[in-house]
């Protein structure tokens, strides 16, 4: 820490690292966020990258960003706007300038702001004249030149040298926010264990960036964000997709079942399959199928054979799986279908986030085809809801759709490693060998779940299938009255799940007039907006739905406490419509954004205040 620099204590900071897809911005951001988490801050991150693996260099389409929000208080979102933007080229500035706070800082690699790159980014003239940077502190740093200078004697080839420049930027930002460098150094030592030259090079550049920031006196001050008050325990970072994979493995372990995942790669769900594929050591079987339909059909086959079976996908894949979900409904087998929602329709915005698969999950199948629907709402609670999805699927012998989204999938946060004993037991309704007079469609009187008779079990040989089943016997039946009865039984079985789910919790002021309603991945933004509005002395309440079908039993009671209901969601109003179908007595106000991006707290605060007044 420079003696001259003033140290200013602040509550929270958001930093956005941005550059070309190949500039290593995801790694830079991850190292910074891990360092901050280890330091004791609360942290939330959000990567923002293009669908193209390597879009043309220097173009706006190829800009990859990573935002880190860390603070001394609870951090629930990656932050709408950033205090600091690191722009490794003009395209990064072009793509991200709109997200910089009016009093923020921009640090850019001056070497990359040449005529050619400026033109590639689509600027017609000096970017800092075109963008309104009044009020913004703009720091020009020759990052590429200084990186080359720093490594000229290390013995690396020029290409590899330039690849280290992201660490120079990390060094600058680390000084600015008083971050220790140990974690990054430790990372280099592990990552490049077999290439000691790269350990030396990256470490040197990181330190040189740090000392550069200290020396240039361009920054009037540096900032300190004290550790947050965090519950004691062992922590790690986790993103939503890994948490889903791990939650499912935890459920399989608890239920003593083999986990089987039949799946087809699709953004942004793929990393769940990848995470599971690594875990052969936990006996997980992953089957990368030839298509989405085969993904779910192999899972149905595995479920019939006695595995805890899951399939993972995103919106377009869910559409393809529709008929097979109906097969799982008809055969009443446990199955978890994970849908990591992205921007639609059609191929839409594969790498962006949206909440527009709700109606598809609820109704996107032929016939009366009820399934349980659960939505996750933070990267780390993806673990909990994945566990619960498996528990409900098995105990109620039903398909469960678990809705996540692109924002939760890639966003990370520190996660207090849970004690697995705190999770509820999973009772497997397995039929015992040679059960006298066993019937494939006889049901538990409480749950209406049938029993699971697994091939290999003596005396329970039976046939399941997609044709309508005779009640109790499971034989094929075309009897009209039986079809109606079975339709109702399947529906009631799903509704009975409501008895096993926790009541809806009201956050904020129970005596407020306005209830803000959200579901799934918008929790962090909504709760932050709620806190901010209440801090201004206004009364407002929030409920966030995780259980969508069935809804919690106290939903009506909660809704009836409030005069005004504002449903906020990233679609054109699907959940509002769903609530209107179930509780038509209320008028639902709506706030919707469909930009492929999470809400901003700023927008939410405005809309909440407006609705308080109207």
């Amino acid at each position, binding site marked *: 820490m420079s003696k001259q620099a003033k140290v200013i204590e602040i509550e929270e900071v958001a930093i956005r690292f941005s550059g070309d897809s190949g500039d290593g911005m995801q790694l830079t951001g991850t190292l910074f966020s*891990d360092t901050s*988490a*280890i330091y*004791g801050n609360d942290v939330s991150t959000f990567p923002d990258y293009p669908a193209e693996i390597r879009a043309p260099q220097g173009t706006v389409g190829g800009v990859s960003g990573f935002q880190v929000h860390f603070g001394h208080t609870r951090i629930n979102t990656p932050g709408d706007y950033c205090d600091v933007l690191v722009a490794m080229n003009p395209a990064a500035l072009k793509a991200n300038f709109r997200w910089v706070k009016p009093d923020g800082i921009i640090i850019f690699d001056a070497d990359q702001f040449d005529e050619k790159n400026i033109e590639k980014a689509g600027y017609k003239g000096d970017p800092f004249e075109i963008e309104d940077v009044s009020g913004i502190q703009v720091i020009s740093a020759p990052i590429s030149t200084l990186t080359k200078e720093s490594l000229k004697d290390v013995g690396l080839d020029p290409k590899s040298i330039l690849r280290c420049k992201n660490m120079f930027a990390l060094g600058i930002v680390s000084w600015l926010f008083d971050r220790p460098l140990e974690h990054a150094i430790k990372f280099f030592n592990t990552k490049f264990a077999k290439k000691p030259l790269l350990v030396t090079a990256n470490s040197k550049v990181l330190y040189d960036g740090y000392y550069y920031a200290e020396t240039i006196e361009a920054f009037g001050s540096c900032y300190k964000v004290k550790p947050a008050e965090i*519950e*004691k*325990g*062992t*922590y*790690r970072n986790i993103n939503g997709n890994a948490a889903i994979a*791990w939650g499912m*493995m*935890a459920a399989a*372990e608890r239920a003593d079942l*083999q986990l*089987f995942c*039949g799946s087809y790669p699709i953004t942004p769900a793929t990393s769940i399959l990848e995470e599971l594929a690594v*875990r*052969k*050591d*936990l*006996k997980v*079987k992953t*089957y990368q*199928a*030839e*298509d989405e*339909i*085969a993904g779910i*059909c*192999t*899972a*149905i*086959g*595995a*479920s*019939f*054979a006695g595995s805890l*079976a899951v399939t993972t996908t995103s919106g377009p894949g869910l559409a393809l799986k529709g*008929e*097979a979900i*109906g*097969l799982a409904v008809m055969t009443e087998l446990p199955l978890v279908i994970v849908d990591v929602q992205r921007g639609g329709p059609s191929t839409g915005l594969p790498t962006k986030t949206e909440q527009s698969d709700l109606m598809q999950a609820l109704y996107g199948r032929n016939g009366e085809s009820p399934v349980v629907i659960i939505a996750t709402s933070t990267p780390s609670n993806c673990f909990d809801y994945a566990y619960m999805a498996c528990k409900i699927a098995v105990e109620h012998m039903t398909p469960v759709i678990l809705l996540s989204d692109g924002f939760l999938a890639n966003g990370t946060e520190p996660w*207090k490693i*849970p004690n*697995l004993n705190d999770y509820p037991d999973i009772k497997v309704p397995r039929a015992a060998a040679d059960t006298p007079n066993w019937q494939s469609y006889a049901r538990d009187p409480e749950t209406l779940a049938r029993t699971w008779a697994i*091939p*290999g*079990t*003596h*005396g*329970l*040989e*039976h*046939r*399941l*299938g*997609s*044709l309508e089943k005779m009640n109790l016997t499971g*034989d094929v039946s075309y009897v009209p009255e039986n079809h109606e009865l079975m339709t109702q039984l399947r529906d009631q079985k799903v509704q009975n799940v409501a008895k096993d789910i926790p009541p809806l919790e009201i956050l904020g002021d129970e005596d407020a007039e306005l209830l803000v309603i959200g579901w799934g991945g918008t929790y962090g933004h909504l709760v932050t907006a709620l806190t901010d509005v209440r801090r201004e002395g206004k009364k407002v309440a929030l409920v966030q739905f995780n259980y969508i079908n069935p809804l919690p039993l106290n939903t009506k009671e909660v809704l009836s406490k409030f005069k005004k209901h504002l449903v906020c969601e990233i679609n054109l109003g699907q959940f509002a419509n769903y609530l209107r179908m179930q509780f038509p007595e209320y008028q639902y106000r709506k706030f919707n954004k469909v930009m492929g991006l999470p809400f901003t707290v700023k927008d939410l605060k405005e809309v909440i205040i407006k609705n308080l007044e109207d």
Partner: protein
Amino acid sequence: MDTQVLNAEDFKSDQMVRWCAGCGDHAILSSVLKTLPQLGYKHEDIVFVSGIGCSSRFPYYVNTYGFHGIHGRAMAVASGVKTSNPNLSVWIICGDGDGLAIGGNHFLHLVRRNIDVNLIMFNNRIYGLTKGQYSPTSKLGSVTKTSPYGTIERPFKPGGITIGANGTYFARSIDSMPKITTELLIESAKHKGASITEVLQNCVIYNDRIFADITDRDNRDDRIILLKHGEPMIFGKNQDKGLIMRNNRLAVVQLGQDGITEKDLLVHDAHCEFIGIHQLLADMDYPDYPVAIGVIRSFDGPKPYDERMEDQIVEVSEKSKIHSVHDLMYSGSTWEVK
């Protein structure tokens, strides 16, 4: 072992068989029922999986575990069953439409993965359950309800697809030759890998006598050839015809003519890896050639997918330090908050 005292009757289910009178499916069911007691598997360890179509009613008629899926997806469902539990004897029942049209992709990938299952394709060259539309195996020009002026599509041959996709096992039988069907199904069960058995099956309602040229008793022996591994390719009522290679093609020859003797005939090698001759044999069709019946290809090379999966689990588990989700959660980068 109770399996030794079982007979075909023991594998019949209590369900009424609902196929049309005279349908070839009855004969195939009877062949399968005779096969099952000879496999060495108990009832509860056998699973029949089907898709949609007339043949797909099959699992209801066998007293084992069964799964009647959705159209075209039997191969995928069965792949999941076998991968989940490789100890099961898994059988797939599909038709030519179910297996080669809507399910064509899954068929190819089942063959490619070489999962150790037995698939019986009931090929009647027509869509029966939807009442008489052409199928991917209908001959060019077939007049059906959806091709009133004759089809303009070239047909698939199940054998060509299986062998062309580097399949490890392909056999062909005819519904009216139930004894041979049973023999071939036993062979299919022995083969480690995806075993495809095509049964030419008569649809008495919508495509009656489509195979009559080769199945009518009077001409049958002259128009089919029963291939047996290690034996010369000889056929005919009087066992006086055979197959040789001439100009890179198969040719039918008359024994005794032009000095040709049995020694000049090709000897069937079902076990070789090279697919060339198997492709030619599977492709033979009347009237140019006799239609090949029997095990055309049975190559015991590559380990089935399901076994490799188990091997990998053992191998990785032995090396890994992670044996529980608890271990996993505490692996990698963690930190303490005190």
